[in-house]
């Protein structure tokens, strides 16, 4: 349950964090700092969702989806 709270972090990082990082220097990976900050949260967002997915009991029950329907 508290694991789900992790999902709030990208919202905080992007919506509340940006006013504090609204500058160009230092460039990170060649990008303006504020852009790099947003990119960081996109990546972290994916990581956080992967962690949540891995520990979510809803995904444990076996569903037969070994075969993909392709057409």
């Amino acid at each position: 349950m508290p694991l789900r709270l992790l999902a709030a972090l990208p919202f905080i990082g992007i919506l509340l964090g940006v006013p504090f990082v609204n500058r160009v220097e230092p460039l990170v990976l060649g990008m303006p700092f504020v852009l790099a900050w947003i990119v960081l949260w996109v990546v972290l967002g994916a990581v956080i969702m992967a962690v949540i997915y891995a520990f979510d009991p809803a995904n444990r029950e076996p569903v037969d989806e070994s075969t993909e329907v392709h057409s």
Partner: protein
Amino acid sequence: MSIALVLIAAVTAFALFLGVRARRGHDMNLEQWTVGGRSFGTAFVFLLMAGEIYTTFTFLGGSGFAYGKGAPVYYILAYGTLAYILSYWMLPPIWRYAKAQRLVSQSHFFTSKYDSPALGVLVSLVGVAALIPYLVLQLKGLGIIVATASYGAISSTAAIWIGAAVVTSYVMVSGVRGSAWNSVVKDVLILAIVLFLGIYLPIHHYGGLSDMFRAIDTARPGFLTFPAKGSSVSWFQSTVALTALGFFMWPHTFGSIFTARDERIFRRNAMVLPLYQLILLFVFFVGFAATLKVPGLKGGDIDLSLFRLSIMTFDPWFVGVIGAAGVLTALVPGSMILTSASTLLANDVYRGALNRKASDASVGILARLLVPVVALVAVTFTLNGGETIVALLLMGYSFVTQLFPALICSLLKRNRATKQGAFCGILAGVAVVTVTSTMHLTVGQLFPFLSDGLKDVNIGFLALAVNVIVLAAVSAVTQPRTAAETSHAHLH
């Protein structure tokens, strides 16, 4: 006829072929035509949903916005991620309910949840109203691509007509499956091209990414950060929040939820799709590279920046490859939008309001007949409007986001919102959007006494606030006197 144009024509023909071919082996009843028989696996749902993101909007609109406005373009990267995180919990219950009730459209969902056909009709009208600007921006993109890549041989007006004809024909033949196969081709092509352009152009013209951003920062100080006024940080925050909430409210996106075979697909996509978003970065790089190299584009013309820079940099054959990818980014989403809009009108407005007893077969036929009608309306708007691509999309977003409060209430175990509340809330929100966008009002103009930060809040947010207040107030007044879990069928 230039080599660029030949390539574009060949790819368009191939897309048409795939779309027509996708129909084979499937009995096309209404459910098959619109939601692919609810049989798509992770990969296809992923592509349908990702297909929503990589439209002309990102390809031309994203680079154009970076070119013309600078930092505000970053919002495009942010909102999808937040929307996907929400989707992990929001989409599975929607899918379960839709499957149990055999729903094929978004307004069916509202009709069924609130037990109110009137609400369903309103939702579908909102959907159509939002889809039109979305379709207009795809066609506008098509016009830009073909006109530019033909080096002036084909006028943008003719290009828009040709594009609309192609989308219309394959949607009429194959419905949503045509879109899914073309999504595969489109995504591979666009991925390769955007990555290449985003890496090559900064290096070719500036020596590298850091050098490019330093050069821009020197030439145009403040361009790479959010300005103090206008598209400021509070504009960013409110726009990201608004578009993240509205992300899945589009009728066609909502429709792609129904195509999934099981609900786990959404949870899995929620962790992959944010990374897929990063392709947008390279689109931004292209736009930024263009700012100093092809300066001078203004207003609606900023969307041309990617092509202007490509023509300056590459041989015509490669401009043709870029153009072909661009055509697909307009055709694929364009076809989904057309499918959604015509299904909405036939299934939800016609059957919902005018002829309740219409059979599936006749609704299916009507949906297909409406495809060219909707396309024609969009072409008319395209030829008469001068908005930028991003402005068009944001207008559509302001509309669809108005459906969010009523949707969320309906997913709660105990829904306190009544059908009257939902109806009035949506109506009030949409009214605010319509008035403010036709009169080009901003929050700052409406409330000049606010602080600078609050003045820049996206106007769609104001509409959403009005919507929620009306929904709450009307719901409070119209609460059924009996236990809340019984339906409110006795009202009205």
